[in-house]
């Protein structure tokens, strides 16, 4: 039993890496624009399917990865610049924007479903050999996944803290109106955020499919709640928080599985979010008094 629990830590880290990539992208977007973008799941699916198409055309694996990332980035940027901006200009409130993203999510998911003829497709990606370290067993691909997540985190941290763009981004997230009057090129920054977060969404979709080896039109929307939970738990806009929350959720789901409740794994994860909300809601949405505005 103890051994299982320890092994679950290893598995938890791998799962956490997967969640973290998605959560970082989501929180970056959410923190700046204040749009709780439910169509993020649809973008994840689109990224995964782009990689599938690359595979069908027998393109090398690296190209498939590029397809996924590019699709995610472009799609998100397009949605942000056209649809979301349209409704934001018309004075949509926080919840109205959620409804807009929900509608887009429906269109994405069922559009892909229709195009994919509602089939489940097989996705082959080299898994690499299994390595055994003491109690832990990982494949090379899983290690790569963790490495990618770490690299993404490092990259974003550097962007936010060391570059001018990052500083401008943080300023915008904090005080959008003030940032505008300060001469910060808010439009450009929003563009950058859409692209980066979209790229991460595409990457997440791809990573998910690499992990599960099958793909259908609902992968993104199925995985989104976990990503959402991690982003909310980690506080909107905070990539560090997102990573920590992803770790927590990954570990909890795997530990619960290890202790015999595989069916309850994700329920347990969401349960944590529910508990935090019940006991310390202010910790998650501290600025209830301030009126956050949509910045797209």
């Amino acid at each position, binding site marked *: 039993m103890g051994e299982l629990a320890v092994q679950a830590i290893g598995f938890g880290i791998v799962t956490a890496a997967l969640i973290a990539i998605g959560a970082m992208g989501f929180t970056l977007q959410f923190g700046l624009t204040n749009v709780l973008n439910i169509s993020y799941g649809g973008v994840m699916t689109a990224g995964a399917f782009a990689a599938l198409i690359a595979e069908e055309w027998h393109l090398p694996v690296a190209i498939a990865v590029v397809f996924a990332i590019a699709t995610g980035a472009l799609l998100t940027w397009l949605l942000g610049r056209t649809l979301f901006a349209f409704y934001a200009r018309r004075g949509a409130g926080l919840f109205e924007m959620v409804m807009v993203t929900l509608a887009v999510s429906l269109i994405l998911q069922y559009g892909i479903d229709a195009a994919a003829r509602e089939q489940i497709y097989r996705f082959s990606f080299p898994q690499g050999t299994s390595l055994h370290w003491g109690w832990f067993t990982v494949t090379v691909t899983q290690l790569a996944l963790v490495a990618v997540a770490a690299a993404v985190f490092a990259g974003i941290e550097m962007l936010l803290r060391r570059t001018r763009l990052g500083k401008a981004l943080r300023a915008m997230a904090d005080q959008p109106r003030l940032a505008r009057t300060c001469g910060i090129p808010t439009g450009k920054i929003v563009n950058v955020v859409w692209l980066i977060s979209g790229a991460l969404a595409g990457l997440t979709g791809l990573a998910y499919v690499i992990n599960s080896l099958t793909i259908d039109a609902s992968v993104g929307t199925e995985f989104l709640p976990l990503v959402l939970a991690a982003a909310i738990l980690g506080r909107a806009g905070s990539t560090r928080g997102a990573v920590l929350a992803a770790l927590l959720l990954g570990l909890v789901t795997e530990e619960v599985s290890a202790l015999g409740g595989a069916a309850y794994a994700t329920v347990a994860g969401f349960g944590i979010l*529910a508990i935090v909300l019940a006991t310390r809601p202010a910790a998650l949405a501290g600025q209830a008094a301030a009126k956050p505005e949509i910045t797209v």
Partner: protein
Amino acid sequence: MSFYLSTLAVYFFIDVLLAYALNMQFGWGGVPNFALIMFQAAGAYAAAVVSLGPDTGINSFQSYVFGASWPFPLPLLVAVAAGGVLAVVVGAFSLRRIRRDYQAAILLIVSLVVTGLVVNMVGLVNGSNGLTGVPRPLSGVLSGLTYDGYQWVYAAWCAVVAAGVYLVVARLGRSAWGRALRAVRDHEDAAATIGLNPAGLRMQAFVLGGMIAGLSGGLLVEFLAAWSPAAWGYAETFAVFTAVILGGVGNNWGVALGTLLVQVIFLQVPTFLPQVGYTGLIDALQWVLIGVLWLACLAIRPRGLIPERRYRAATAAARAAPATTPTPPRTQSATASTPSAPTTAATATTPTPPRTQSASAAPAAPATAPTSQAASNATPAAPAAPTAAPAPPAAPAAPHAHPASPDDEVKGPQASQDEVKGPQASHDEVRWPQPSTARRFGAVSSDRANPRTPAAPPDTPHGVVLDVRRVCVRFGGVEAVRDVSLQVSAGEVVGLIGPNGAGKSSLLGALGGQSAVAAGRVLLAGHDVTALPPHRRARLGLVRTFQHTSTFDGLTVFENLLVAGLSARGARLRDSLAGGQRQRAEAAAAVWDHLREFDMVPVADSYGAELSGGQRRLVEIMRCLMQSPRVLLLDEPMVGVAPHLVRRISEDCARISASGVAIVIVEHALEVVEAVCDRVVVMASGGVVTEAGYAEAMSSGAVREAYLA
């Protein structure tokens, strides 16, 4: 075909119930309940387990809790209860004060958790296989009917239930409770300052909605004879949302129309189309279309096809029995530009035509119109009448018109009152609140004294009403208010000035209850209110306004004031279901008084969102007055207000304090402070620099230092 139509009818009425539930929770309560279908499921499961009998013997292939064989209509009652209980549990942690988008996401996640639990705890309600074999109600009694016939009877039964729920919901919507709920939806903080308990009201709406959804579940499961997680995927919630958004948020007929359009027409018509592409293509495309429909709706007609109905106070008043309260002050303001003599003459004559007008209006009104309708409700009909009746040439009513000279005003009402009372008696004897009754501002309305000269001596005792003792307020690590003490007596106006960041608004927040006090105490007329939430303080007489105007944008001006007048007492759910006409009548009378005083009668039916900034300020102030506060905290009331209105509001402040209200006003416009305040408190960096009369404070070096430091 009959089958198809009867099934469709059953589904329609059940979906309408769901739409009412969502309308209650979301349209009026403002809670974006993405977990709606869960409540239907709770009701369905509850009804199923109490009508299935124990899970042994014939039911041994499924396992579930409880298991009784209760006859109709008990399972439905259990379904209602289940929906309500689930709403209490879910509401307890998801109705916190958080952003609506968070709330939506959280409710979505909650529904996923519940689905996960139900599917995996197989012993609960048989997991993903669900329950089957639920007996149809009264199948023994109605065994004479054919299958077809039974379906139609069931459809009629569902129609009856839907109609009954409609009656309840419509009544609640029109009631004070419904109005209070919508006020909370529009601006929670402002609602708290008028004594409404936002959390309580929202929970009530949530539970009511949950109960209605549970009822719909009970009806559905008894019709389908089976229930499983497949029947309550979260896509179902979206279909209901589509119906509500398309049909009209906040309007019961609207959501019913939306249900018809979406659930019946939109989702059924494609099934009649010839098969295109592979099986299931049309189905997938349907959802794409729903998404497109949403986007179109949100872009073109976000309030839906039949939006929330605007409450027309004037029309409501015209239907009511005629009034006693004098029309003249209103007509007087209209004739502000004309000299007083003709005005007085006019006042003598004008009552009669409007009187006949309302007299003719009265018989038109249904004979059953409650006699307790407010007297003054009819009054606005009179000003409207002059345009048709041979009224004296009156200048068009200008909301900004200044009151005519005081003497005439004092006389006019008195004169016409006597006149009016006589003939009046023949129409309605009872229950007019006499204008001279000791409502706190009854004195004001009949007594429009010059702003500077005190009117009738206030009957409130002199003494300290607001006692602030060494209050500290901290936000995170920053100390916004340091050790501030302050005493304000009845009738005093204290100005709170200082540079930005001095802590003025923070102090006001602590006094009003919006921020927590880290140290110190706040006493209101002897009561220690330090730990009380804003709505409790409001009920004790401590009212505050906000920097950004806080009108209820989704309510008309009349309703903005009415909801303040009814607040804690009349807005109780119990009372609203019972009727509560009398309190409403009294409050409505006060509303008309205020509207007349502030020359806002023409905009009585405008939504808060349709007013100018200055008008909104006035509405805010009137709203405060409706509660007869002891202490009024005004947070930068002049921000964004046009200059002539600034003067106007200053005069109103003076008048209000003259009647015994203690006022604390935070202001940057120093001429206002000078004009209005008896005393100023200068703050800087969280502490009090000095406290003195305006002139003295201004000439002291301390203030200059404070501003420049």
